[in-house]
């Protein structure tokens, strides 16, 4: 029973991480319907940038964290401006392949500078964050993860509901032409959504790095695990991304715990195929009925 509860808690925490990783992905898809295959590399860039700031530049944690977020915000903006904007209106495959090419570039860049080894951050989370509920032990990283992801969820919820930029983004996602004719600056919305997505990605990259250590290959494989998560939750639903993330996280930890550790990494994809066959728009996705 204790084992079960421990797996449950771990699963929810891992799932929340998948959820916030997927959030940035969904944001890009929602506003510009671009499937971003470079998301894992964006996570990795954020994590490594943070690593460089605290180990090489020796900045205090908070300053480094904020600088990383700002840096990635600008990076996302630049990616949109130089790579994605020329492709507006082009065929889907070009856009997808462009992100695949970007992924290879970023990965190569990170490998060139930091190599493929596992790096770790100096520990900065205090032990007082660890919780003990009966026999279940929740590590400080997990507590921090939960707190951070809930804070970000609330911030994004408010951003999309209340702020004017958030409302513009939703309007573009809903109907691009109508938004254009009502005077929404669609190009700025695209740029902003990439910038915010990169910011969220870097943040989840840092959290993942604190939890498992920083390694390019691990982080970029998480970028691909985003796909089962968002398909389960619905490609264009931010809340769905979080719930999909938790379900996939639970599924993974339980398969790893009870069945076999090697099956753990494949289970999300098996689920993915079945969802696509049965309910392709996921749990919360927008159903566009088109039978061709």
């Amino acid at each position, binding site marked *: 029973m204790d084992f079960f509860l421990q797996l449950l808690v771990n699963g929810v925490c891992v799932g929340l991480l998948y959820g916030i990783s997927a959030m940035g992905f969904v944001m890009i898809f929602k506003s510009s319907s671009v499937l971003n295959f470079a998301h894992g590399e964006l996570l990795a860039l954020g994590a490594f940038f943070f690593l460089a700031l605290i180990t090489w530049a020796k900045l205090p944690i908070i300053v480094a964290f904020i600088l990383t977020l700002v840096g990635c915000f600008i990076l996302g903006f630049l990616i949109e401006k130089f790579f994605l904007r020329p492709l507006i209106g082009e065929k889907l495959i*070009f856009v997808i392949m462009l992100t695949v090419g970007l992924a290879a570039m970023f990965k190569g860049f990170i*490998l060139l500078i930091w190599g493929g080894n596992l790096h770790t951050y100096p520990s900065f989370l205090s032990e007082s964050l660890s919780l003990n509920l009966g026999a279940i032990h929740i590590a400080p990283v997990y507590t921090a993860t939960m707190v951070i992801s809930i804070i970000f969820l609330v911030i994004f919820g408010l951003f999309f509901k209340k702020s004017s930029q958030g409302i513009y983004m939703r309007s573009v996602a809903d109907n691009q032409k109508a938004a254009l004719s009502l005077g929404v600056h669609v190009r700025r919305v695209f740029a902003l959504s990439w910038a915010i997505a990169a910011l969220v990605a870097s943040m989840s990259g840092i959290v993942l790095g604190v939890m498992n250590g920083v390694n390019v290959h691990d982080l970029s494989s998480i970028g691909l695990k985003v796909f089962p998560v968002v398909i389960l939750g619905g490609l264009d639903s931010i809340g769905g991304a979080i719930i999909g993330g938790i379900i996939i996280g639970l599924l993974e930890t339980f398969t790893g715990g009870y069945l076999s550790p090697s099956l753990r990494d494949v289970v999300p994809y098996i689920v993915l195929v079945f969802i696509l066959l049965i309910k392709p728009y996921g749990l919360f996705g927008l159903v566009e009925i088109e039978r*061709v």
Partner: protein
Amino acid sequence: MRKFSFHPCGNYHESYKQELNIFETDFGRACLLIFLAVLFFVVPFVAGPYTMYILNTIGIAAIAAIGLNILIGYTGQISLGHGAFFGVGAYAAAILATRLDISFLIAIPAAGFITAGVGMIFGLPSGRLKGLYLTIATLAGQFIIEYVLIQWESLTKGTMGIVLPAPKILQWTISGDRAFFFLIFISLVLMTLIAVNIMRSKYGRAFIAIRDNDRAAEGMGIPIFKYKLLSFGISSFYAGFAGALWAYYMVSITTEPFNLGLSVEFIAMVIIGGMGNIPGAIFGATFITLLNELLRYLTVLLMNINFVINLGFNIAPLKEFVFGLAIVLFILIEPKGLAELWRIIRSSFKLWPFSY
């Protein structure tokens, strides 16, 4: 009436039949024949073993790229699972050859058909989905197939790998780069011929109709699901065929090479070569293979310079970076690929001196 003429400086087609011709003039046909004659009767006897190795790699990659081009370039469906399908073909051939002791003449096409079956299973979601969703389904296929290849040890020997017997026709054994050159390039010519002719048939036209406008195609009475699945099947057949050739050529196979990176490489060949263009797939395969070899050569060269070692950089990932850069630049600057560049070069010769 036959006339041996050069390319006309414009489009002078008068009937649909002329439009369908593979060669516009006998001049083009003669050029191809000369090229093939040089390829088969001069190149293998002049080239050294390293050149032969590169040519063989290009030939195998070209077969897979032609198949993927039928799916991506002609039918408009994106597959991220072709690396794994290539692996399925390699393993199918290896298992048929070692367990059942089947001759390679049967094992290679059989591997193609087995792969076609596997490919169609992952093509099934195309019945309900289009574009984006299908890409994700094939991505899942990639991971599931990789897992099965590693874990189904009783069949695939897992990470141990399988050693294939050398292929034999009657009493001759095919081994060495030169013998394989003939096997691979005869296959490539045959597969190219088949692909070009599929595209001129009813099936090819249906594929193109689905790519250009699936709703209109359905309205015209093309059963979309059937044709999409067929396209998946044909394309996987090519991947499996190429995989089987690769398995025989490499002699021993393991599960490692058939990862997502290989799938991306195949797609890059199609995009860099030119989508919806069969010679383009061959150009793309040549470009990517040469790029890979060049980068490997550069890496080795740079590793031996003391200055670079002292900088503490690991040069090996440079390959990944340049590879990504090539894809990005081609998409941004020449999205129709090398085939389009080739057309521009040819037509500027044709139209000279009035090439405006």
